């Protein structure tokens, strides 16, 4: 899956998850930039992304994420492997 469509799909997920229709994903965005994105929300967000894309994250993959750009790249890579 290419990063642009991946980012769009993730943006939809973020908007629904954080209940904010105006949320716009930027590559340099981190948890600090979004209200309610604490460590517990992070867990649920990752599980939601797993469910929607039908992929699974490992603890080490997730541990390496610094910002939205990393997340988009990771999801795109895993979704591609799945044949999405």
């Amino acid at each position, binding site marked *: 899956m290419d990063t642009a469509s991946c980012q769009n799909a993730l943006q939809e997920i973020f908007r*629904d*998850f954080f*209940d904010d229709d105006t949320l716009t994903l930027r590559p340099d965005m981190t948890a600090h930039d979004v209200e309610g994105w604490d460590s*517990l929300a992070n*867990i*649920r967000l*990752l*599980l*939601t992304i797993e*469910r929607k894309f039908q992929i*699974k*994250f*490992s*603890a080490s993959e*997730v541990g390496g994420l610094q910002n939205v750009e990393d997340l988009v790249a990771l999801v795109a890579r895993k979704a591609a492997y799945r044949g999405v």
Partner: protein
Amino acid sequence: MKRDLYRDLAWLPPCPADFNRQCRTALDSGDQLGHEIQRLARYALTDNELIRLSKTIASASSKGLPLTPLRPFKLGLAGNGTSEFITAAITATAVRFGLALTSATAGYDQALQDSLSADSALNRLQPDAALIALDWRALPLHPTPGDASGAKLAIDSTLDFFDTVRHAIRQNGAPLCIVQNLAPPPEGTFGSLDRSLEGTLRFLIDGVNAGLVERLRGSDDLLLDVAALAETVGLANWHSPSEWNLAKLPFSQAFLPLYADHVCRVLAAQRGLSRRCLVLDLDNTLWGGVIGDDGLKGIRIGQGDPSGEAYLSFQRYVLSLRERGIVLAVSSKNEDETARLPFRDHPDMLLHQEDFALFQANWNDKASNIQAIAETLSLGLESLVFVDDNPFEREMIRKILPAVAVPEMPQDPADYARTLSASGYFEAVTFSEEDRKRASYYAGNAQRAALLGQAGDVEGYLASLAMEIDFQPFNETGRVRITQLINKSNQFNLTTRRYTEAEVAQFEADPRALTLQVRLRDKLGDNGMISVVICRSNEPDVWEIDTWLMSCRVLGRRVEEAVLQQLLDHARRRGVRKLRGVFRPTDRNKLVEKHYAKLGFSQQPVPQDGCQIWELEVGSAVVKPVPMAIRSFGFNSVSSEMVR
């Protein structure tokens, strides 16, 4: 996409797309807040939606907004692993059981310490109940394969650990503990031998689970059988190594809603809030087919026929509920005599009239009937569960009597028992002789309860269905179904005239006949063809209604009035002055003896061939607007034969 019974709580109605928005606006509902949150909680909610709803509840609490009629309940939780989502999910789910939960949790992996310490958040809450939710990872269950005394030591130490935590919590003021047993991980080291070789993890967990049953016996503490729950959904699905690895989630979050539901069932049961009465529809619920149309020989119940066996297995399940004290009642749209026929005369029926406390078989709406059942049994509506194969009836009761539990039923009757069981409405935490006898305290003489007037806004419900009714003349496409309806309708059939397919085809081409095939759709689904009408003009200016029949499945929706409106429209266009209705009474169509009277026809003094004759002046006839969108197509422009 097909909903999974356990992952999606498929017995609950699906959640609307704008759930988040509804959670937000709930906070503005003033004194209806508790009711509004309860309405939202009655949908099948995912883990994220439960947490969303719990945030709405937390927001309401922090603003000091009252949540009546929800009853307050304080729950303590002592678990291992990440438990924040569990308390949020339980809080949101508890609303459906009528409870406004506040909770306190033992610190991460601090179950023992916090239960012993009077000062912990857990004990300072003084909970009404404490849930001890430990899994095997938190317990001294070190496998010792082949070592029987090592196994016994591990099992006893674990059971002692549970006892210590329980007693500590009780010492600190909580009146009861709910102890969760252990779901074994699917990974074994030997295969089948894991079960029987002393000291394997499977062996140890089996021992602990059996021991817990014994240690809790005779105490006030209750068992939450998570082992059974995990087995039901599959241990390999329940346990998710990746979710534990990712965030110390003790079981797969996909089952969070189901788990929360099971916890709440036990809490509610302990408080006496479980439901006690099962109200059942008859046609296509307790047997296959419609007794009024198919007769004793036509309904499917019994051995030897797959459909009949499915209904039999459901009857068997219902009977087992009665045997444990659940009160049974019937709410069916049928003639009373007709509805009782299978119970009296069909040899394969498992349920009998004496099994029912009340037997409501009439043509009134089910909301009024179910309300009468509750009143007569002196039970609140929140004690009732209503099972019906018809989505129209189910949705009506959910709208008009929201306190009644109405599970979504699957298409296949083979799954009815499993669905009703999965819904868990009758959860019990004790069982006594008195419970066993309870159902018979209600005399079981299958009486009729007096209807006490109409329950709720039926008109409003009908309008909310967005019904669409389509009228077409007979045509080749509809011919087979039209013929089928003509030959099998017995109850809502004014003249019971039977025609072959060839005769129906002739009507298609007959310029002196006005024919209607009627289809009904609504937001719940497509009902297909539900009514057939044939008018003939044997006299100038007069249409005689040779045939008027309708499926009983769409009674109570004012379809008859829409059909009359359609007939009047065509009559006016063709200069017809009078509609003549014919009613030929049979032993099956008592239902429609007042049909023409209700539509404003006047009975003519002289019957013909044993038939009542009713007439309506087309010019002055008025039909009140009906709650459906009407489409009429395929009719030829006025043919000369039909006009004088």
